[in-house]
């Protein structure tokens, strides 16, 4: 399941983030009539076709796996979280319909009608991400039911969707999709520009991608900060694991890096910045911050992956912020093509965004352990009892690796068709 999720996350993020790029690039074509934008939109359509297909099948797998791997979780929590899942189902349905219309409708719709179809595509993509993240938020802060001897009663599906963690988590996850789609696309065109500095098409592609990435990344850091403060109040044990904080401290120092050791109860080799954790978590340099020791040992997540992933995410996110700022400043928000060192740095953007996204997901998952739904159901009680699970696990992992390799190979072969020209005589609106 973890493998499937990590794999699916990449494609889901593309399914959410990429349509936004298409909205912009096709809109720019209609506005400027620059054929480069048209070619980009056509090329990106082909990329979306591949990625969306893999995202859809891996999503189907996940919906099956919920039952195949977590039958007990679904039996007990299905009635509570099913409604946001169903809402996600509808949003994804609409996205699938418009993916069909958009990808195959280039020659069947007028340019303006075609462009308009990219809006429901982007919107339903964002909505489906929002609903599915609402479920994950529910697992962190379950709401909308009463727990009577392990059975959920008095279910209120709306309260379950709008649980406490939902607003920050939904925005944080949706933005991660835009950050990833923007920076990953920029990586591809930065590589092209390094080889062919005069390639106008690549410059246009990079500009659109970075516009999305550079707008999304500062917002993302702000939301990330809000969400860490949310954890300080609502999920203090997760915060303690994220920060590698074993002992309750007042004032608390911020632990950067280091290796948390759950046996010796200390985080070794770390840089500690006095007062900073208290300030970040509670806006008060002397506020006490609870460490893992303040909680029952049976409820403690393993701080090692949580802390390392958290620092990785924050580090990669901060690097992206600098990169986005540098790009915006050096190219005057895209008026010039980046050259030299900046172009080289932009190549790293996609990888950083990928690392930040997957690490962030690890933080929320590992930080929630040993619970699958905090206070309601433990992970070990929810997992399937079906036999031969490891065979299925290795089988699916191999299958995904194989698909990912083939996909990467095909994606690398997609080239912008320079001979492609916008439809002649098309009703291009003039502005």
């Amino acid at each position, binding site marked *: 399941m973890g493998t499937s999720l990590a794999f699916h996350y990449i494609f889901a993020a593309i399914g959410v983030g990429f349509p936004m790029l298409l909205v912009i690039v096709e809109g720019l074509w209609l506005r400027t009539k620059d054929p480069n934008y048209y070619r980009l939109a056509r090329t990106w359509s*082909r990329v979306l*076709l*591949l990625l*969306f*297909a*893999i995202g*859809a*099948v891996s*999503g*189907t*797998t996940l*919906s*099956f796996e*919920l*039952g*195949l791997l977590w*039958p*007990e979780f*679904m*039996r*007990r*929590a*299905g*009635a*509570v979280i*099913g*409604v946001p*899942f*169903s809402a*996600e*189902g*509808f949003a*994804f*349905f*609409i996205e*699938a*319909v*418009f*993916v*069909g*219309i958009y990808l*195959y*409708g280039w020659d*069947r*719709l007028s340019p303006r009608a075609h462009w308009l179809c990219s809006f429901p595509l982007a919107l339903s993509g964002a909505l489906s991400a929002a609903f599915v993240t609402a479920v994950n938020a529910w697992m962190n802060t379950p709401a909308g039911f009463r727990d009577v001897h392990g059975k959920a*009663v008095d*279910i*209120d*599906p*709306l309260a379950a969707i709008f649980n406490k963690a939902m607003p920050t988590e939904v925005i944080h996850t949706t933005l991660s999709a835009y950050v990833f789609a923007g920076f990953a696309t920029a990586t591809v065109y930065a590589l092209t520009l390094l080889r062919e500095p005069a390639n106008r098409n690549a410059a246009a592609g990079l500009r659109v991608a970075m516009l999305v990435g550079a707008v999304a990344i500062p917002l993302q850091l702000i939301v990330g900060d809000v969400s860490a403060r949310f954890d300080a109040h609502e999920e203090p044990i997760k915060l303690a694991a994220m920060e590698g904080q074993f002992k309750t401290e007042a004032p608390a120092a911020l632990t950067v890096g280091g290796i948390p050791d759950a046996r010796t109860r200390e985080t070794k080799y770390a840089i500690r910045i006095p007062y900073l954790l208290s300030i970040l978590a509670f806006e008060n340099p002397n506020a006490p911050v609870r460490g893992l020791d303040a909680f029952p040992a049976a409820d403690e997540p393993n701080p090692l992956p949580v802390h390392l992933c958290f620092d990785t995410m924050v580090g990669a996110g901060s690097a992206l912020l600098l990169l986005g700022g540098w790009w915006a400043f050096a190219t005057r928000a895209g008026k010039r093509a980046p050259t030299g060192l900046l172009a080289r740095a932009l190549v790293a953007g996609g990888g950083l965004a990928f690392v930040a996204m997957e690490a962030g997901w690890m933080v929320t998952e590992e930080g929630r352990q040993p619970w699958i739904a905090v206070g309601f159901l433990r992970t070990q009680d929810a997992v*399937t*009892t*079906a036999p031969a699970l490891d065979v*299925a696990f290795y089988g699916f992992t191999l*299958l995904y690796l194989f*698909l990912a390799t*083939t*996909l990467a190979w*095909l994606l690398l*072969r997609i080239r912008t068709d320079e001979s492609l020209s916008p439809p002649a005589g098309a009703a291009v609106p003039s502005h």
Partner: protein
Amino acid sequence: MFGYPAEALVAVVAVVAIALYAIFGGADFGGGVWDVLASGPRRPQQQEIIGHAIGPVWETNHVWLIFMIVLLFTCFPPAFSALSIGLYVPLTFVLVGIILRGAAYAFRSQANRQSALGQACGHVFGIASIVAPFFFGTCVGGLTVGRFAWTSPFALAVGLLAVALCAQLAAVFLTCEVRGPVRQDFRTRGMIVTVVLAFLGAVALAVAKTTVPAAFAALTQARSLPGIGTAMVLGFVVLGCLWFRRYNFARFAVAAEAIAILVGWYASQAPYLIPGELTYAQAAAPPETLRAFLVLAAGGSVLLIPSLWLLFRVFKSEPLEYPG
């Protein structure tokens, strides 16, 4: 809600979703079957038309499945849990089939068809298109037999029946996608597979009668007969429509036939979701959840139906003029 128990209304939504998945998803799988079985002088054209027909709608066709799963775990969580454990093996095969098929289809659309990768994807697409409906069929058969006996002779017979039904749906739908000789190819295939389907249906019933008399009795009881009987009649209608080249009419007849088979089966199982173990009422989620789901389904349909209409309007209004 409206004087009916909420689980009955949800069960109706479920039948609609299953029927639509059987028709659209089934035709989609069937397209893969005909891709493997493409033959004769117009083999490449047949394959091209299949790709052309599936392209814009295949994502949508398979979302019905996700919708069904979500419906099941939202509204009947214990049934979802029991089905997942009981049918773990065949569902895993279905899943692998769906993954490989979707991936191979998408990869092939971007790879050169003559290249090694394109050819390999073509084979994978076709084989996975047979594997997935076959194991779906065994799940349905296993449910009918009871105790998830998906390897019982009846279940295997239903698996074959499911593949044939998919192939029939696809062949008939494909006659509406293209004109000229390629259309004739699919007309012939549609008639042959309709006969095969009738034969396999008879075999399945005979197997049921000899190996699982209880299932046979359920399928031939008074409330199952209208569905099963209508399906048989519609099978002849499909054959007649194809013979007289009434393609558009055949399209609706074959869809109605698939629905009739499902309704007949559904009626034979009611009120059980898992025969002998779990009824709809027993498996139902609390009424708050069912009501929320129904409200959501109503609201979602308001957005979904016009979107689907637009999709089919843009891509499915006119058959392709194809020189063949």
